[in-house]
């Protein structure tokens, strides 16, 4: 089966000559949730940013359902069906909740555009805050809005960079439960996470990245008890 998203031997970084990604490859099957794990500085966030068009890719390919989308400008990625939710500052704080969603909807072709009402039914918390500036939402609500903003463009694949960052354990549960509901609507998810336990509980599969390339990969439930995980996080070879 053609992967929904394929990151193939990606090399890249912010500064020429200072690679962060050293041939990273990750493949996500349609309808799958894949967690991208690894210690700090492994290049997890850089990899999804590179796929989203925000970090230069020096070599390697990004394929979306078999289509090569490597090097497209970030705003074109959205139109191709690749959504991205950054870790921080992921909503437009001075726009209202409704304006955040209206902007995302208006920029996308009508036939691809998801209904705002569908978003409000998926995230009922936001429905009650339509007119509120997004900057005044709680941390959890902001994450919901960031996800809803990306979903309005009806992506086939959604990449999220640490959606649990800064949230209480209870809110992490709420956000992850919503992500499961998002997957149930047919969206494939690639999730970068530091919260290994929560990510493995949500994901079908996980890939562990170390020093810019994948070092371990497997079913999430198997990796949860795999001693190699701890070794990689502690800096030992797997």
């Amino acid at each position, binding site marked *: 089966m053609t992967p929904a998203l394929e990151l193939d031997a990606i090399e890249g970084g912010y500064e020429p000559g200072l690679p962060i990604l050293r041939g990273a490859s990750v493949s996500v099957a349609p309808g799958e949730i894949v967690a991208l794990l690894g210690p700090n500085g492994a290049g997890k966030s850089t990899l999804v940013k590179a796929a989203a068009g925000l970090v230069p890719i020096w070599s390697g390919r990004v394929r979306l359902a078999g289509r090569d989308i490597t090097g497209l400008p970030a705003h074109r990625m959205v139109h191709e069906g690749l*959504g991205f939710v950054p870790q921080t500052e992921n909503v437009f704080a001075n*726009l209202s909740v409704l304006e955040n969603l209206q902007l995302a909807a208006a920029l996308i072709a009508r036939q691809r555009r998801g209904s705002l009402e569908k978003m409000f039914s998926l995230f009922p918390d936001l429905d009650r805050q339509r007119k509120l500036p997004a900057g005044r939402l709680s941390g959890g609500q902001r994450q919901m809005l960031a996800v809803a903003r990306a979903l309005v463009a009806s992506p086939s694949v959604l990449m999220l960079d640490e959606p649990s960052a800064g949230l209480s354990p209870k809110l992490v549960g709420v956000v992850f439960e919503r992500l499961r509901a998002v997957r149930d609507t047919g969206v494939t998810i690639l999730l970068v996470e530091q919260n290994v336990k929560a990510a493995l509980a949500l994901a079908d599969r996980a890939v562990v990245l170390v020093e810019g390339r994948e070092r371990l990969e497997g079913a999430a439930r198997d990796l949860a008890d795999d001693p190699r995980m701890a070794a990689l996080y502690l800096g030992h070879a797997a």
Partner: protein
Amino acid sequence: MLQLIADGLVVGSVIALGAVGLTLTYSILRFANFGQGEFMTWGAYLAVSALAVVLAATGAGVMEPLGPFSFGWQLIVAMILAAALTAVLALLVDWLLFRRLRRGNAITLVIASFGAALALRNLVQFLYGTLPEYYTREIQIAIRLVPRDVLGGLRITPDQMLVIGLTLVLMLALQGLLTRTTLGRAMRATAQNPALARVAGVDVEGVIRATWVIGAALAAVAGVLAGVVGQVRPGLGFELLLPLFAAAILGGIGSVRGAVVGGYIVGLAESLSVPLVGAEYRAATAFVVLIGILLLRPTGLFGERA
């Protein structure tokens, strides 16, 4: 007193129109454009040329005044053409200069804008000379709106009323564009977080082009209006540059509403200070007000960030 307020509102209107472009450029392109004043000058001079073309094309020869105003419909057409041409000029300057420097730091762009301003000012002098130009030689009689015994009375020309009215209409239209259209929301989104705007599907380069077009077109209108109530000179925009910055900073750099309010505060401060400190110090009073407001509110009246 009333007369000073009316004079301040006329000057403030021109400053507000120019300052809006300055604040838009700052918030979206993230640098202070010292070339903004020159777009006003170019707008005013391009309208002189456009007016000559329109008069020649219609075979009118001389402009017949429109109603109570000192100018005819031909100047309105010329102003629209000048706004469009100034927008093209701004896009050209961006393409030749700023686009290449965008990945560098803001100070490089600021210095480049100094250079662009110098080049534009000298080019306008080379093309049009240094003598003042006028759109019309019609002499307007000011209308007395308030008798002399009420707060000193108020006389104002229809042209001056048009300057204030047109500024308010344009500012309301801009506010509508920013809050009710996709382009406006995309501009606000880009101003706040360009990287997020990109992943939300905003074509940031397109937004930057729209910002130049809007900022330069408003500057051109400001230049034409300054020419309507005064004269068109090569130093027109340069002399207004510091008041433009004062207005934008006073209102809170990046805030359109702030630039408009700031423009009127600067205009009124300049005008109202004349009887107190004399005309030679009028420009300084705007900066006294600016310092006072920044001491109380460092981000300006409507500024959100330090």
